[in-house]
C-alpha cells in the first residue's frame, strides 16, 4: 500500500504560501488555455449551429463565401424546380434567393461591419431556429429590418424602434430575432427586393438556399446542381459552408495555445522547483519512510501524487477563474464574410475536464524528476540531511 494521500495533502497545507503560488501559476496557465478554447468553441458552435443538415447553399462556382457569390433571378427559377427540393406549408419549394452584403454600423464600441441579408418569405421557413423575440417580421416592400439579438444588445441604434442608416437611407428596426447560438444573431434580415434595389443589385444577387427532402435526395440534388452547366454552381451543404468559416478562429486559437504552452513550461518548472524544495526539506522523512519499509517505488509514487495533487488544486482554481466567462458575449471579425460575428464563450464540462487533465500533465512533468530524486536517495544520506 502506498503512503496515504493525507500525508501529501497535509504537507501541501504545511507550506501554504509556496503551494498557493505554484497552484496559482498552474491556475493561470489553465485559465488562459480554457479561455482560448472557450472562445474558439463558442465561435465554432455559433457557426456550426447555424446550419440545417438538409440545407444546400447554391453559389457561383469558385466562391468561398456568399459575399463574393453571384446568382441571378433566372438562376433561382432554374434551381427552385429541381427534383429533391422539399415543399413548404404553402406548397411552394423551400428555396430562397438571397442577397448578402456588408453594412457599417456605428455604435459606442466604434464602427463595425455587419452582414445584412435580404431574404424572401421562404427564407424564414428555411430557418426554423430563428424566432422573433421582440416586434415582428419585416414587411415585404418596406425599408424594415429584423436584427439579431447580439447586435441589438450591443448597439443601441439597432434596438427595436431604432433606425439604421445604410445604402440609400434609414431602415427601421421592427423586430429582434433570437437564433439560439447561431450566426444569424449577428445579422440583419430584410426584404430581398428592398435590399437589392438599395444596393443596385436587382440581377446580381448572392445565393440560393434550398432544403432537400432527405439525405439521399440531398446528395442527388447537390450532384444535379453542380452538374447543371446553365448554373455554373457550387452547392455545398450549409453545414460544410459554415464549418469552413471556423478558420476565422485559427489565429486566435494559435496565439492562445502558444501563450498557454509557454506558460505551461513555466508552470512545469514552478511545480518542479516546489517539489525539489519539498524533497530537500523532507530528506530525513524520506529516509525514515525507507527505514519503515516503504520502497523506492512507493516514495516515487508518493511525491508524484503530491505534485499531481498540487496541480489538481491549480487546475480547479483555473477552472474557477475561467467559469465567469461562460456565456459572456464577445465578437470577432469573420475573415470570410468581412463582418463581425458575435457569440458566447462556452466553458463546457468537457472543456474543464481538459483543463484539469492539462494541469495534471503539468504536475506530472514537474513532479517526475523531483519524485525520482526522492526515490533514489540513499537511506543514510537522506537521514543525515536534517
Amino acid at each position: 500500500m502506498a503512503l496515504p494521500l493525507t500525508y501529501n495533502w497535509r504537507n501541501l497545507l504545511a507550506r501554504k504560501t509556496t503551494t498557493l503560488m505554484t497552484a496559482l501559476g498552474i491556475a493561470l496557465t489553465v485559465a488562459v488555455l480554457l479561455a482560448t478554447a472557450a472562445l474558439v468553441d463558442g465561435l465554432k458552435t455559433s457557426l456550426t449551429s447555424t446550419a440545417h443538415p438538409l440545407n444546400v447553399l447554391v453559389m457561383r462556382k469558385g466562391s468561398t463565401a456568399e459575399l463574393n457569390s453571384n446568382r441571378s433571378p433566372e438562376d433561382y427559377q432554374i434551381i427552385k424546380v429541381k427534383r429533391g427540393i422539399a415543399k413548404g406549408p404553402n406548397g411552394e419549394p423551400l428555396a430562397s434567393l438571397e442577397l448578402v452584403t456588408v453594412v457599417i454600423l456605428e455604435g459606442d464600441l466604434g464602427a463595425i461591419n455587419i452582414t445584412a441579408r435580404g431574404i424572401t418569405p421562404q427564407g424564414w421557413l428555411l430557418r426554423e431556429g430563428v424566432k422573433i423575440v421582440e416586434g415582428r417580421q419585416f414587411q415585404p416592400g418596406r425599408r424594415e429590418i429584423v436584427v439579431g439579438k447580439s447586435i441589438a444588445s450591443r448597439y443601441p441604434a439597432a434596438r427595436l424602434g431604432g433606425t439604421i442608416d445604410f445604402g440609400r437611407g434609414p431602415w427601421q428596426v421592427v423586430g429582434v430575432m433570437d437564433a439560439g447560438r447561431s450566426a444569424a444573431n449577428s445579422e440583419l434580415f430584410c426584404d430581398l427586393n428592398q435590399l437589392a434595389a438599395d444596393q443596385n443589385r436587382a440581377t446580381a444577387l448572392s445565393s440560393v438556399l434550398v432544403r432537400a427532402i432527405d439525405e439521399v435526395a440531398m446528395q442527388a440534388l447537390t450532384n444535379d446542381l453542380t452538374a447543371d452547366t446553365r448554373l455554373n454552381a457550387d452547392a455545398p451543404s450549409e453545414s460544410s459552408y459554415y464549418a469552413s468559416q471556423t478558420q476565422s478562429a485559427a489565429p486566435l486559437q494559435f496565439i492562445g495555445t502558444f501563450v498557454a504552452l509557454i506558460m505551461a513550461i513555466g508552470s512545469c518548472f514552478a511545480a518542479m522547483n516546489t517539489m525539489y524544495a519539498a524533497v530537500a526539506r523532507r530528506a530525513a522523512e524520506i529516509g525514515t519512510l525507507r527505514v519503515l519499509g516503504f520502497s523506492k517505488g512507493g516514495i516515487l509514487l508518493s511525491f508524484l501524487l503530491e505534485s499531481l495533487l498540487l496541480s489538481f488544486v491549480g487546475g480547479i482554481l483555473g477552472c474557477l477563474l475561467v467559469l465567469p466567462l461562460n456565456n459572456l458575449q464577445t465578437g470577432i471579425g469573420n475573415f470570410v464574410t468581412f463582418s463581425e460575428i458575435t457569440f458566447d464563450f462556452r466553458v463546457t464540462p468537457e472543456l474543464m475536464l481538459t483543463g484539469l487533465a492539462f494541469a495534471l500533465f503539468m504536475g506530472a512533468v514537474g513532479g517526475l524528476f523531483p519524485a525520482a530524486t526522492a526515490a533514489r536517495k540513499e537511506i543514510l544520506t537522506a537521514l543525515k540531511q536534517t
Partner: protein
Amino acid sequence: MSNVVIETRQLTKEFVRGESKVVALKDANITIEKGEFVALMGPSGSGKSTLLHLIAAMDRATGGEIRVLGEDLRKLSDGDIARWRNAHVGFVFQSFNLIPVLSAWENVELPLKLTKLGKAARLDHAKKALELVGLGDRLDHTPRQLSGGQEQRVAIARAIVTDPDLILADEPTGNLDANSARDALDLLGRLNREFGKTIVMVTHDPHAAKSASKVRYLEKGELLPIGQKPEDW
C-alpha cells in the same frame, strides 16, 4: 531452531572519500541471541552506528558476512530488504524522526500500511502500541504538540507496532532530558523482559548502557573482545 538473531563474520565497511579509503568497520564478528539486550558503545567514529546500520540493512557491507533473523542480507534486493525490514525490524532514531504532519496514531500506523491489515485493525494495533508506551490519551496529537520524551515514546510505539523480532535503537536517549531518557530506557527494558524482544542499542551514555544485558565496545572501527573497553573509557 537456532536462537541466533544476528551473526556477523569479518564484517567490514569501507567508504571512499576522494582518493582515500576510510574503514568505518573492520572484521567485526558478533553473535546476538534471541532475547538479548545489547548496547554498542564507543567514542564517536568508532563504528557503532555503522554496525547498527548494517544490521538494519540500511547500508551494504563491503566485506564479510551478515545474517540477521536467518537472512543473508547480502543476497536480498532493495525491495526484499524493504519488506523484510518492515516485517521484522523496528528502528528507534535519536531524533525520533516522526512525520510532523501526521498525528501520533497516524505515525504509529505508517508501518502497518505496508501490511495486509484493514483500517480498523491498523487503528486497533496503533492504539494498543500507544497505550503500551503510555500515550493512549495522545492519539490525535501531532509531534509538535508532544514533548521530546513523548515523541520518543511514539517512535518506540511505531517501532513495535508490527511486532518485530528485532528492535534497533540509535542513541535513543541522545536528545532527551534525564527523566525522559529514563522513561525511554525503562520502556525498552520492558519490551526486552516482558515481550522477549531482541534489542540492539547504540549509545554514548554509560547510564543508558546499564539497561542492557550485555555491552560491546567498539574503537576505531574494531569491535573489541567481550569485556574489553577502549583505552580512554
